[in-house]
Structures are given as C-alpha cells and as structure tokens.
C-alpha cells in the first residue's frame, strides 16, 4: 500500500474510494437522487433488462449523474419489456417501455438531463395499495 503523504493524497484517494460506498450512502436518502428501477422479472431479463441496467449504471456514472439504479419485480407491462421507472427528485415517477440501449441513452440525455419528455412513456393506469390507503385516510 502506498503511504498517504499529504491531504491532497487523501482527497484523491477518497474520490476513488467513494464509489465503493456511494451506493450505500445514496440508498440512505434515495429521494434526493434520480431513482431508476429496472423491471427484472423473468420476462424483463429475457428481453434484455440486465444489459439495460448495466448500461444505465455505467452511463450515469460516466456522465456524472447521481442516481440510484435498482432492480424491481415485474411491473406488469410485459408487452413493453424491458421497462424502467424513472423518478427525478421531487417529481412523480414515469415508466418507459421498450427500452433498449439507444432509448436508455435518450432517456438520460433528454429526460433526466433536460427534462424533456421522450417517446415510450407508459401512462400509469393503476393505483397502488399505499395510494388508496392514503386517500382514505
């Protein structure tokens, strides 16, 4: 192991090492980052969701976008796999279907970076139990 001789050494080392734990730090307060969930049930994986997830993680890091990419179960839009759900801080989540690498790139560049809507949005046409409960209460 190399010695840390100056504060600058340590700072540089921290930059490199932060990626080791930043996934854990972000998970502590995901609402302040872009959260992307990739539908990774059998149908999702079969249609290439894993590659999309790998691409998203790499691309977001390269482009310096702080994000939490996690996998989730089947979102129910099996006709449109792979599907991903993107939630920007303080905004409602949006689901995109038929996501390939090109589409994923477009989502990052146009929706996440610039806030433009891109094709392929699947309108949410259901309520989750939590919402219902909240409304009743």
């Amino acid at each position: 192991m190399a010695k840390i001789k100056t504060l600058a050494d340590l700072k540089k080392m921290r930059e490199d090492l932060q990626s080791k734990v930043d996934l854990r730090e972000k998970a502590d307060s995901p609402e302040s980052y872009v959260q992307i969930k990739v539908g990774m049930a059998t149908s999702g994986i079969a249609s290439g969701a894993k590659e999309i997830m790998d691409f998203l993680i790499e691309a977001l890091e390269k482009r310096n976008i702080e994000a939490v990419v996690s996998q989730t179960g089947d979102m129910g839009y099996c006709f449109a796999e792979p599907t991903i759900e993107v939630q920007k801080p303080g905004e409602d989540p949006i689901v995109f279907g038929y996501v390939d690498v090109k589409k994923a790139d477009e989502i990052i560049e146009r929706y996440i970076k610039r806030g433009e809507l891109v094709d392929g949005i699947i309108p949410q046409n259901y309520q989750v139990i939590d919402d219902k409960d909240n409304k009743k209460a």
Partner: protein
Amino acid sequence: MTKYKMHLLVCGGTGCRASASDSIVESLKQELENKGLSDEVQVIMTGCFGFCEKGPIVKVLPDNTFYIEVKPEDAAELIDEHIIKGRQVKRLLYKDPEKKESIADSKHMDFYKKQIRIALRNCGFIDPENVDEYIGRDGYMALGKCINEMTPQDVIQVIKDSGLRGRGGGGFPAGLKWEIASKNDADQKYVVCNADEGDPGAFMDRSILEGDPHAVLEAMAICGYATNATKGLIYIRAEYPLAIKRLKIAIDQAREYGLLGKNIFGSDFEFDVEMRYGAGAFVCGEETALIHSMEGLRGEPTIKPPYPAESGYLGKPTNVNNVETFANVPVIINKGANWFTKIGTEKSKGTKVFALAGKINNVGLIEVPMGTTLREVIFEIGGGIKDGKKFKAVQTGGPSGGCLTEKHLDTPIDFDNLIAAGSMMGSGGMIVMDEDDCMVSVSKFYLDFTVEESCGKCSPCRIGNKRLYELLDQITKGKATMDDLQRLRNMCEVIKDTSLCGLGQTSPNPILSTLDNFWDEYVAHIKDHKCPAGQCKDLMKYVIIEENCVGCTACARVCPVGAISGEKKQVHYIDPSICIKCGACIERCKFDAIIVK
C-alpha cells in the same frame, strides 16, 4: 475496478455473530458464486446495526431492504428471490408489532425513524476491517484538516465550541479537558481511550470499536495533535476479543497508510497507538485506576487532584476520553462546531447512544439527540414493554445511576435532567423493568455488583457497601425493621460523601432512587412481609388449596426436597420449613391446586 450493482450488508457485531452471521456471509458468497453473480453483488460484513433483538440482520442495497433473523440456510432463497428475481422475501421482513404489516425499508421502522447517528454513523454501514471504506466515508479527512489547516488551539476551540461532553458518564466538557492537557508542558504526553466498558447492559463502546475502529484512532490522533501528545493508548477489556481484533487490524492499516506514525500528512506531527488490556475490573473505568492498571499497578483509584491532565500515565500529562466521546470528534471537525450545537439541548449537545435492555421489545443499540424523552425511547424506538406488561421503571447509569419511573417519562434526557431526576447518564445503559420486577431486589442486584467490584482501598466503599447489601438482603427476607430503612438511608449518604472515587460516591444511588420512588414497596417487605412483585422467594409461601387437590401425588413425586406429604386421594400439605420455592409442584399440578401466597 468492478462496480457492484448491489450490496448485501451483514451484521458482524458480537450479538449477530453469536447467531452465526459469519456463516451467513459464507453462504451468501457461495450462493452468488454458484449463480455467477460474484462480480455484481458484494457481500460486506459490517458492524452492529443496533437492532440486536431481531438479529442477525441482512440489509440489501440500494433498495434498502431490511431482513431480520436470517439464518445461513436462508441465503439461497435471498439470492434467488431478491437478487435474481427482484422479489422481497416476505417471511424475513420486519413486521410492525402493532399494525402487523411487513416493513421492508428500515427508514420506515419506528426503531430507526427517530435516530440520528453520529457516533454510530459507520456502524452497520462500512466494513470495519477495511480502511478504504472508512476513507470513502470521509475517513481521516478531519485529521488531515486539523494538521494542514488548523493550529492545536483552533482544534481545541472547535471542540469547546461544540459543547461536546464526556460520554463515559461524568459529562465533563471534552474541549476543556483537552485544553488543560495541552497547557501542561512535558517532554511526553499521552492520549488514552477508555474502552473499559463495565456497566451491566451497556455495549455501545464495544459496538463502536467493532463497527468503526478507525473513527476512534482518527479522533485520538486529533486529540494528540491538539494536546501535543505523541502516544495513544487504548485501554480495553480483554473480554472484548472481536473489538480487539478489529482495532489491531485498523491500527496496522493506519500505520501502513502513514496515518499513524511519523510525519503524518507530511508534517512534523507524529502519533502512534498501542493497546493495553484490562482484566475486566469495573473500577478500572475510573480514570486514575485505569492509569494505574496500565502502569502495571493494582487497579485502584487515587485522590484527584492531581488530575490525569497534570500527572497521569507514568506521571505525564494524560488526556483520557471515552470511546463514544472520541467517535464524535471527527464529525465535529468536518462539519463544524456550529452544526453540532444545533443538535441536542442547551447544555448537552449532540446525541447519545443508549443500550436498551431488559423487558423491552426492541433490545438494541440506539442513538438519539439529547433531549429525546424517555417515553420516545422506550415506547416508540424501543417498541414498548415485552408481553404487553406494564412499565414500572427504567434504570439508567448502571450501578451508579438510579431508577426513573412513570413520572419521569416525559423528561427530556440530557446530563443535567437525569441528575435532577435522581439518576445519571452514565455510559448509556437503559434497563427497562416491568410490573414483575421487585425494586428492592433490583437495588440488591446492583449492590451485589458493587460489593464484588469495589477495589477495597477506602473503607466507606469496601465496608459500607457490604453493609448496604446485607440490609437489603434482610429486607428481601422480611427480617428488617422500619428503623433499618432509616439506617439504610443514612449509610447511603455517608458512603456517597466519604468514598474515594466515583464508584463509591455513586454506588448508593440505586438504593436512594428506589427509596424515593418506591418507598411503599420497601415498607410492604418490612411490615407486611410481602413482595408486591412476587420476586422475593423468602416472602413467598406455596400452599395447597384443599378444595382443588385430588391427591394425585404428582406434586409430592416432583418435589426435589420432599417437602410435600399426603396419602393417595387425600389432600396434600407443603411443609414451609422444607420448601425451597422452586415452583416445580405448580408446574406439575393439573388441578390448579397450588398457589403462591
């Protein structure tokens, strides 16, 4: 560098390891290997998560799913379902005890909602055996900042401004302590970390050392820089093997990186840390006794002054702080005194770690801002009393503290409020008691501990505590008089006033506080020869109810001392002079014919 997509954090604290959490790590790794996922999912053994009641804990990130009571054989299911298919394993999720709903995200659990983690910031978050993870979490930045950008006086000023008080029990301002040590000139000075955690039920220092050892090393080095000391010593009890192991690893790693040793960060500052082992004597938590023990002498206290800051280890100026106090220091340096003073109450800043134990649902380790009420700690974070019983008292401060009751539940917890309420902060042990606990027996338990742990140097503590214990023993046997109660109180006052060190000066506190809060219970033992909680064996009597007894002889056969006599199909009789009150007959009787009076 491979970028892991998911992290599996497994608790590696002593509690969870006792429930085989190291085999869980092995099984998870094996299972990932089998599925070809080793490059994508990282398994990390961390320090304590605090939720010891439901350990072993496995936390999945980034989705923050919190699994409890995991067994090594659950590994396959976790990987198959959660990691591969993205489905939570419901049966291993935490269930809200009231709403009966599963809670996957630990942030939504009552246990974690009210906590602010400063001293425990890295426990359950990083791999304590890997310095890189600590550096990734701003580790050693505070030390770098001190050496490069601040003078020792600046550092002391920040600690003073932060209002940080000693977390070992006394609550002495840490900055002031540092200042005194820095002003005493000597050719050699020392920084000592007091890790001789001895209060029954307290385990925060152990958990910090097991979960985040570098934080303590960094803080000791900062203290060394501030007080111009070049040697650090950690006095730790030998019965903390895991903490010792991880500290040793941490010291080696820090030396390798040059973060301990000579010319730290290219400066003239040098600092190194060594370990000293204690044999587990309670009195060695007292700083003068601790220093004598480190010098190879008997672990006995001496009168202060001189304070260790003037003449400590080997007669040199020595600054002694507790583990938790040190753990706060790097954060204060990084975030500033102002940030720290915003947390807590007027005179007690920051947070405090408490070890919840006793008749409480969520046994574990928590960190809350000073000023949180006992009610919040016990009923919200702690999940209330076990088995739906009634809250009776909470003992804080260990053998030096006292019992607080229902009327104190809404008192904001800080150093001064606890003393005003007749107890003390101590190291942060909280033992919760329910209606089945006899307060006289509780006092007796603590006095038994003090008698055992008194070093014997001064007579008030050596002889006085023994007499206190005997009086309490008489009370629990129903042999005391009301005059004895007065004697008990007088003796408590004398021992408090005349003992040499903190041990004897505080040992009567459990009695005094129970006398104040549970006077009736003492009187019931003496006047009515009854223990209201039904704990004192000598005041219990096992009797057979004639109407219910069918003479089956089952009780007579199970009685280990032959105290029960009676013919077949005749009513039986228990001879109280022989009966040892073991309760075996009650368990055996099928006709509810035996009761305790």
